[in-house]
């Protein structure tokens, strides 16, 4: 498995004023064995980026390196079939006229092995996705989850330098998703590089070593899942990844040990602060789970409940802050909180993050 390096990759469709810029200068370096998720809303360029690495799209400028090979640069485009990558497509893309075995055999045979040499490797790959018993079936006889597992086996059988996933779970239902995630997770070995495109933050956070958040064709933030959720660098990331609530606040003291005393209205609390900034006005990011309901008399923020969505073990609540001008808060409250529409909640902030300055919405 190999290091992947993208430098200032640009891609646009069409020309002049009508051009659509899918990628606007993307640079990224993936060490060998890393699992990177590309996360972003539709139209953010994540699929284009993946297809550019696979060689299914040409790029307009910049360069892409896989291992020591320069696979894409101005005037250079190594064909997909010569890049030695594996792809798991959204719609599985199995060939209906071949059996499961033949589908998985295909990459090996194209790399020059005959069927006898390749058979053990095909069966090993099928065993990894627990499908060795269905080798002689055709894709039409498989369930959606099984098809996607065959696609997974096909993608990894030839030991590609990188496995690319293009929203592989999008067409599966929730139960199968979890199962498929286990299979993908199992593939993760120190020597396998993976690039995983999704618009579903849950998948990205669960599977990836690092998450790349894309908006409008450029990278907004690259971080581990934990840091991405706890320390979003821009407001768009805060909203998109953690459905974080953004509030205007002010500093009420000097930061110490990474914690800064801040206040919203007349309620003051501590917020994590890495900005080393000194401006009085700050933007605060509060995760939906970072606020707890407390007795009405205690210090805290007051918010009136607008909508309640029961979720089995918790409530998702939309609430409007009272006495402070802000967007509606989205909260996740435990079962004991028992919120009802129209209630006025007293909320204590348990955790907050001071948004870095100067990197507000680009």
């Amino acid at each position, binding site marked *: 498995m190999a290091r992947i390096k993208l430098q200032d990759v640009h891609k646009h469709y069409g020309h002049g004023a009508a051009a659509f810029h899918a990628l606007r200068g993307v640079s990224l370096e993936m060490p060998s064995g890393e699992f990177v998720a590309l996360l972003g809303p539709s139209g953010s360029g994540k699929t284009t980026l993946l297809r550019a690495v696979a060689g299914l799209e040409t790029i307009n400028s910049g360069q892409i390196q896989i291992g020591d090979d320069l696979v894409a640069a101005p005037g250079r485009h190594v064909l997909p079939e010569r890049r030695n990558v594996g*792809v798991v497509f959204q719609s599985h893309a199995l060939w209906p006229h071949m059996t499961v075995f033949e589908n998985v055999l295909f990459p090996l045979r194209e790399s020059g092995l005959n069927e006898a040499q390749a058979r053990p490797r095909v069966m090993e790959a099928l065993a990894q996705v627990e499908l060795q018993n269905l080798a002689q079936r055709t894709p039409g006889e498989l369930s959606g989850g099984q098809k996607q597992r065959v696609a997974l086996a096909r993608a990894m059988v030839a030991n590609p330098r990188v496995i690319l996933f293009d929203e592989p779970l999008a067409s599966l239902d929730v139960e199968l998703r979890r199962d498929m995630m286990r299979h993908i997770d199992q593939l993760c070995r120190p020597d396998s590089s993976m690039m995983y495109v999704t618009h579903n933050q849950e998948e990205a956070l669960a599977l990836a070593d690092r998450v790349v958040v894309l908006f409008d064709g450029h990278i907004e933030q690259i971080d581990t899942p934990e840091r991405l959720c706890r320390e979003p660098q821009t407001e768009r990331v805060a909203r998109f990844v953690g459905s974080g609530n953004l509030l205007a606040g002010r500093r009420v003291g000097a930061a110490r040990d990474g914690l800064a005393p801040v206040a919203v209205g007349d309620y003051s609390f501590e917020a994590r602060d890495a900005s080393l900034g000194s401006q009085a006005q700050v933007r605060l990011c509060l995760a939906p789970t970072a606020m707890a309901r407390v007795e009405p008399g205690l210090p805290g923020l007051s918010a009136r409940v607008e909508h309640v969505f029961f979720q089995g073990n918790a409530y998702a609540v939309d609430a409007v802050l009272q006495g402070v001008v802000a967007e509606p808060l989205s909260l996740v409250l435990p079962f004991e909180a028992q919120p009802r529409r129209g209630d006025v909640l007293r909320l204590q902030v348990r955790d907050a993050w001071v948004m870095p300055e100067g990197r507000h919405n680009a």
Partner: protein
Amino acid sequence: MAADGLSLLVGRGAVVSGSGAQERGLLGLALLFLGLFTLLPAVYLAVQTGLALVGPTREAVWATLTSADAWRASRHTVEVGLGGTLLALVYGLVFALFVTLTPARPRQWLVFAFVIQALLPPQVVALAWTQLWLPLKNMMIAQGWDSWQAISNPLQSREGIILLLGIHYAPLVFLTVRAGLLNLSPEVIEAARVCGASPRTILRRVILPLVLPSTVAGGALAFVSCIGNFGIPAFLGIPGDYLVLPTLIYRELSGFGPAAIPNALVLSAVVALLAALGMGVQRVFLKRGRFDVIAARLKVAPFDLGRGQQPVALVLTVWVSLLLLAPLLALLAKSVSPGLGIPLTMQNLSLDHFSYVLLHNDATLRAFVNSLSLSLGSAVVLAVVSLFLAYQMEYRRSVLLRRLMPWIEVPYVIPGVVLAIAMILLYLKPLPLLGWSLYNTLWIIFFAYLARFLTIQLRPVLSGFMQMPRDMLEAAEVFGGSLLSRMRRIIVPLILPSVTAGALLVMLLSLNELTVSALLWASGTETLGVLVFGLEQGGESAAASAVGVISILLTLICMLLASRLGRRLPEGVLPWRA
């Protein structure tokens, strides 16, 4: 960027440099094929027409163009063109509305019996209709109607030509209107219903306006086909000296040989001009016919004629069956008739005419071999070419090839005489470097067929590609495999039904082809169409009928084989399926 010129050729997401030599080489070959066989004849024809009008032959050419013969033939061409188109329009439109919008039964037979008219060789159909006349006339005379002695075959007239053209080309209108109707969303009709509109109002105010563009487009196509048809006016017009432009050109060329080429050229330019007019109208209206209301497709017939439904269906079934079977039975009867003047009974059926054309006559046998080789050859070559063209157009989205697409249709849509003249002009002189001429060889007909039938083969392959999920081809690309290996192991197996169906359609049409080969054949390179025509002109109606019966059997075999591909084909590939 420097690669932009090339990406115009190969489309986006494609090979730009490095290892794409194979793909670029094949693209180059495809472009060469298109240039040589499809575009060159048209360009050359235009240039030569211009030269003929101003060159050293100009006086003779202008004389031809303004001669009484040319004027009369042009007038006749417009007459039968407009007449046939009008008939095809009304007949095709009414039939399409009835079959698509009401629960017409037996739908499959209705569609089949109606559409097959366009696939039967027109010259054989014309022959069959004329065979219908004699038995009728004899019967009337036997009944004591002596005055019938003096009546000549009423089909051998302008009206006869119009009638047969109308029946032959009504399926073109039918198919475009039906496609337009099937593309309507049921909600369009339901919305009118819930507003309280009566079926009559819905038809007049909703459905007809929506299918009007496709109707006009179908009519324009029928017009171009009517003015280009050679078989029907040849059989029904030449005996009564009612000449249209294609038959006049044929007479000039067969009478005076290559010396008549400049005259034939300008006459064919008149046909081409009329055809261009029709094709322009067709293109404009075909574009307008595309509405974005195809979210859901019309599946069930939304209307019912109530008590009238069954009787109307019955009458139409009998009508289309009669129109199809009566002339064919007359043709069959003629082909097994024992001899002139002897009445046909079940006891004295004779297969002499079949053994004559199949076993005892070198010329007819040769025609069979020629036609079969031509049709097999063009089917195979076009199948391969269309695979690579469709790959570039659909998968690589090659901008250049997509722009060329309308031109690929031109050699099929233009009147056959025009194409034939273009081929003569191109290949009369010895080929550069090689030093020999293709004129009077089978090759010139073969090249004409390659140009004429490319679109027939390409269309099903293109819809096969469109139906194939793009992912599957991308997966093949990612997991290794050169273009040829992908073609062989992934694309061809997946798309084979469409390719085969296209090849069978090409075979069917080239087996039945007359217009082009009538002008291009020489002794030794006769085709089946030429053979029927020649036998009939030589007074051997029975032998001509036998050849006609065999052609129709070959047509049916091609259709049957294509039908067996059945559900594995994209919708609309086989026009005769309901």
